[in-house]
């Protein structure tokens, strides 16, 4: 409660949320239909619904944010609203943490309980009765049923691309912090430089990750179908990659906004929100590097 506000600002009614709901509905309907159609021969219109929904959503998000930016530049927002945005973003990031926690939890459970039990070790070794001859190992190269889930021939060494990617992402956090510091000092040229470097680092990360996936699929036999190692590997790195992609897109938007001169030294929540998000993605990567690649 720094400065007591005298009046509150409440936005007028808005058409963006309802359009966004429709977009979300089209996306969900389209995605479900498209995915179901993968297994059948009929194609249908589902993928068009999905595309239409996604385009509509992109449009809404742009317009919605544009409106918010305009209001902010008109000076309609008090400190209090700024704090609401901050709380909102922080809790959103917390929800993302919990989303990843579900997959990390699955990985820990599988490694420490499910696979050893299947292999006849520990408390519930009886599970081995179903798959006699299966022995536990991690990474799981030999799955219990190699016909349905052919295990990978090889897994990815942490000390090649993953290590490089760790360096890239960690340094991107540093460059972003430098950009932020420069913004606070009001040095726009430096902000642009360091923000630009951050974006490049993010893009490099993504490029290497694509490369890694290609190698995994074409050379190592490490696929989604390769048993539980492949499943946990791809769900964790895949969702992380999706978040890096989103983060990079947001960084690019922030970059454009810097060029347009949207941010001032003491009013730049949009910038900060994106940088929080980027640091969060970075922290998740450290967890991935440790638990998916090294250990």
């Amino acid at each position, binding site marked *: 409660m720094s400065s*007591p*506000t*005298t*009046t*509150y600002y*409440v*936005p*007028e*009614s*808005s058409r963006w*949320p*309802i359009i966004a*709901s*429709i977009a*979300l*509905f089209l996306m*969900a309907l389209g995605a*479900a239909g498209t995915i*179901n159609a993968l*297994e059948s021969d009929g194609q249908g219109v589902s993928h068009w619904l999905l595309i239409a929904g996604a385009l509509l959503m992109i449009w809404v998000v742009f317009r919605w944010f544009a409106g918010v930016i305009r209001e902010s530049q008109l000076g309609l927002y008090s400190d*209090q609203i700024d704090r*609401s*945005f901050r*709380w*909102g973003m922080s*809790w*959103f990031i*917390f*929800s993302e943490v*919990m*989303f990843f*926690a*579900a997959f990390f*939890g*699955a990985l820990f*459970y599988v490694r420490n*309980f*499910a*696979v050893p*039990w*299947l292999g006849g070790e*520990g*408390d*519930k070794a009886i*599970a081995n009765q179903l*798959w006699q001859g299966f022995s536990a190992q991690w990474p*799981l190269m030999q*799955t*219990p*049923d190699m016909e*349905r*889930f052919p295990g990978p021939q090889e897994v990815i060494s942490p000390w090649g691309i993953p290590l490089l990617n760790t360096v890239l992402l960690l340094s991107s956090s540093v460059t972003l912090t430098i950009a932020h510091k420069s913004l606070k000092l009001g040095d726009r040229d430096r902000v642009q430089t360091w923000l630009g470097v951050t974006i490049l680092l993010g893009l490099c990360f993504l490029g290497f990750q694509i490369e890694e996936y290609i190698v995994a699929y074409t050379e190592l036999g490490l*696929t*989604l*179908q*390769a*048993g*539980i190692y492949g*499943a946990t590997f791809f*769900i964790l790195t895949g969702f992380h990659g999706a978040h890096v992609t989103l983060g990079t897109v947001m960084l690019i938007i922030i970059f454009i906004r810097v060029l347009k001169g949207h941010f001032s030294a003491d009013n730049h929540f949009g910038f900060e929100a994106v940088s929080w998000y980027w640091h969060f993605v970075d922290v998740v990567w450290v967890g991935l590097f440790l638990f998916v690649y090294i250990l």
Partner: protein
Amino acid sequence: MSSTQAMTSHHATPPSGLMRWLLTTNHKDIGTLYLIFSLTMFFAGGTMALVIRAELFQPGLQFVQPEFFNQMTTMHGLIMVFGAVMPAFVGLANWMVPMMIGAPDMALPRMNNWSFWILPFAFSLMFMTLFMEGGAPNFGWTFYAPLSTTYAPPSVTYFIFAVHMMGISSIMGAINIIATILNLRAPGMRMMDMPLFVWTWLITAFLLIAAMPVLAGVVTMMLMDIHFGTSFFDAAGGGDPVLFQHVFWFFGHPEVYIMILPAFGIVSQIIPTFARKRLFGYTSMVWATSSIALLSFIVWAHHMFTVGLPLVGELFFMFSTMLIAVPTGVKVFNWVATMFRGSMTFETPMLFSLAFVVLFTIGGFSGLMLAIAPADFQYHDTYFVVAHFHYVLVPGAVFSIMAAVYYWLPKWTGRYYDETMGKWHFWLSFIGVNLTFFPMHFIGLAGMPRRIPDYALQFADFNMVASVGAFMFGLSQLLFIYNIVQCVREGDPADKRVWEGSQGLEWSLPSPAPYHSFSEPPDTKVALLLTKGGR
């Protein structure tokens, strides 16, 4: 009324007709939308429950095929949990939290609109599955793998995306509530001055943000297993179907507290009003609520005692579960102590609250029985579990919602409901609920499994009683609608205070409350005085 005009004058008048509701950013409009949506879902889910009870009226197959019966139990559970109970609480939070803390509106009003309007679409998706090839989801509201993966109907994909949408809606709603409470309190109102409904919602919102993403995670893994060849829940690839249950219940148990903590808050507002005393043990209530919330993350496997957990697991989850009974007991004690030597009157909200205290406690006790791991080997997956969770959810969560509606309806509409009709609604519901669910304890202990359309002859009598009770309860809810409609249309005008013993900021606003609750922060001293009493 002059103050009302001053408040609304500097805002453009809202669009009229349908557009007002589609575009609104007003916490009261959105609250109303949530509540109406919830009531609609309550009747939709209720109809499915009556299909179930009609089939179970007698042993043998009468009305529906087993396949359809399974779809009904699944859809009933999902709709009641995600469509009726949760949105009702969010609707109440929307209406009441800003008014109780002296705020103009919710912190993020446009996002508030989005949170709501996702829901009708999500449920459209859910209802569409009923008409799809292979039928609606039939694997139970807990959608255990492999029933929901290997053996699921194709509509499961739609179900997964519907769940994602509900999750997005809940998370955004919760973020909004937290931001409102942390940031928009009247100047001078400290956390420990907040009314308990606000406190319980703050903690519920935290639970939502922590639990819903895990639900999103588990349905995503399902989607991958079904369509993209992963083996999270398939031992043939090194996964484990039990993993599904762990992740699901890591969400699921906090979820049941999401459905009861706001109820605790409501009852803690109502009982002091009608006992004309301050709430006994405010501080201990806050601590009890917080510890229930934290504990709720380390008890999940009490739903899985019979699945084959290691012994240490059974013991850990048994004792941690029993621990929850301690803060729960503190709460019940405080409610009773509040009433002790109070000058009580028994208007409809109070009747529902009293029934809540008694019947919820019965549900708590059966929960304690279920928490005893060795005993649960007998109770698990029987009607005893059904009795347990319906006692905590129907005369628990649902009664608290009804109590809240009767309690605040005069504030919302500016009119009183008909007290006599309210009492009729209460007594018929009270008898109906107990007739329906009490016998389920007995047939459960005697061994009748849950989720089956047919049963052995010795369970016939109690099932018949339960079905009669269910129809009685269901039909009495028509009275609820009647009472609301008749209050809105021709109730006697209500004054500011509404109830003789009511305390708190919301009662300092006129009835009906103005469109924007507080356009200026209320006077600090008045605010404090009022909330001190209100808590």
